[in-house]
């Protein structure tokens, strides 16, 4: 599969490591180009149809997988062992296997090859799932004012100077606001009974931090 992508693999990797405004630009171009790539569209739809899904399932899968691709680029999970379109397809495969298993769709059509990830890049998404994700979403979705903007830019690796420039505030104000918003979010998380329980059971050793 070959898609015309506006940035080379090397440029994507560099942006992923650097973060900030450059990464934002690269992600936008990569996602847009993949959205418009017929080869990618056909490959994913054919893959899903052959393995028990329909066109609508494939469309949902593409949207979910491409948004995951953006997050994986932010998290530097893409290491360039395959082309970006094949990596995106790898995420689709991985997600479809999960969906098929959850929906009870027969996995007869799923081959061993499907179970192999593309290259050695990490295609998995968040370690949080299901209800946990909903609780987190409830908290972060309730944040008011410009906090979500500060938080999103910070998470994308923007420097405080860049955040200030984007949101039209001074660097000092950007630093202060980002810090306050983060603190507020962490306090809300720490006060939520469901998330408290989750954290008690959470094993940091599973996160490859050490």
């Amino acid at each position, binding site marked *: 599969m070959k898609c015309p992508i506006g940035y080379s693999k090397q440029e994507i990797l560099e942006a992923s490591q650097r973060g900030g405004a450059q990464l934002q*630009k690269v*992600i*936008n*171009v990569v*996602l*847009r180009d993949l*959205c*418009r790539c*017929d080869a990618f*569209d056909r490959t994913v739809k054919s893959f899903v149809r052959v393995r028990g899904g329909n*066109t609508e399932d494939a*469309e949902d899968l*593409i*949207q*979910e997988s*491409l*948004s*995951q691709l*953006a*997050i994986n680029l*932010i*998290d*530097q999970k893409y290491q360039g062992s395959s082309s970006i379109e094949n990596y995106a397809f790898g995420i689709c495969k991985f997600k479809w296997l999960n969906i098929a298993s959850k929906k009870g769709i027969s996995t007869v059509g799923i081959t061993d090859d499907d179970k192999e990830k593309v290259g050695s890049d990490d295609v998995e998404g*968040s*370690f*949080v799932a299901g209800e946990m*994700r909903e609780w*987190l*979403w409830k*908290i*972060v*979705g309730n944040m008011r004012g410009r906090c*979500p903007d500060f*938080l*999103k830019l*910070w*998470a*994308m690796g923007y420097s405080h100077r860049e955040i200030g*420039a*984007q*949101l*039209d505030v001074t660097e000092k104000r950007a630093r202060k606001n980002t810090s306050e918003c*983060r603190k507020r*979010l*962490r306090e809300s*998380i*720490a006060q939520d009974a469901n*998330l408290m329980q*989750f*954290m008690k059971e*959470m094993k*940091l050793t599973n*996160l490859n*931090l*050490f």
Partner: protein
Amino acid sequence: MENLNNSERIDALLNGKLSTTERAAFQEEMAKDANLEQDVKTHTLEREAIKLLLKEDYKAQIKAWRTEGSATTTLPSSAKERTLQPKARTRSLRPMLSAAASILLLLVAGFWFSNANYSGNAIASDAYTEAGSITDRSGNVQLDKNVQQGLQAYFSEQDYDGAIRSFEQAGNSVDANYYLGHSHFKLKQYGEAVSYFNQVLAATTLPSYINRSQLEYNRLLAQIGAGDTGSTFEQNLAQLIQNGQPPFNTKAQALKDKMGSFWRNLAF
């Protein structure tokens, strides 16, 4: 890393910025300090929460791009099924069916032709005139840095979504609004384009790189693209034909003729 507070150390850990030795020391410290472990977990969930926000944003953008491209990519299943219909069973019906099919084919071709050339989208994008370049402006004008970024995205990268983000950051200025209108036009978001063009045209004087008649003409096209061809459109059109500068007055007249043509009426 010794001068960092706990929160900064946790950030360094989660960002993968600690050395092997520092990570080992951190792990050891965490084993003895339940509060530190709790803080690491809270920081981890904080990041996951923000990623949910980012993911939603990306998903909305991806959906828009996918919807925009879907018209040309797939054949609807119902159309495919139609090709599998059985052949007509009786020979006597064939001439009649052939005639009907020919008429249908002509009608379909007519509709296709009219839609391809006379639909709002087709008229808007075919007749569109490109935005003026701000660099034509005489004198040394200090441009807002967001406008500069937007111009870079608009002219050099043709990244109109990126351009919109930058121009929106620039606040309510004629420069930003003018290019916001053109960026939305390029993305076929005609309603937004009309709104920004209106804001620019409301200014008494315009910078030299903006030709008022050209902008009025582009506004008409955006109105057609948005399907907004009511009385306001008629007034704008009549005014440009009467008072506009060449060649936009004649272009406006041609547009009026096209709007009243048989094919345009067939398209709608």
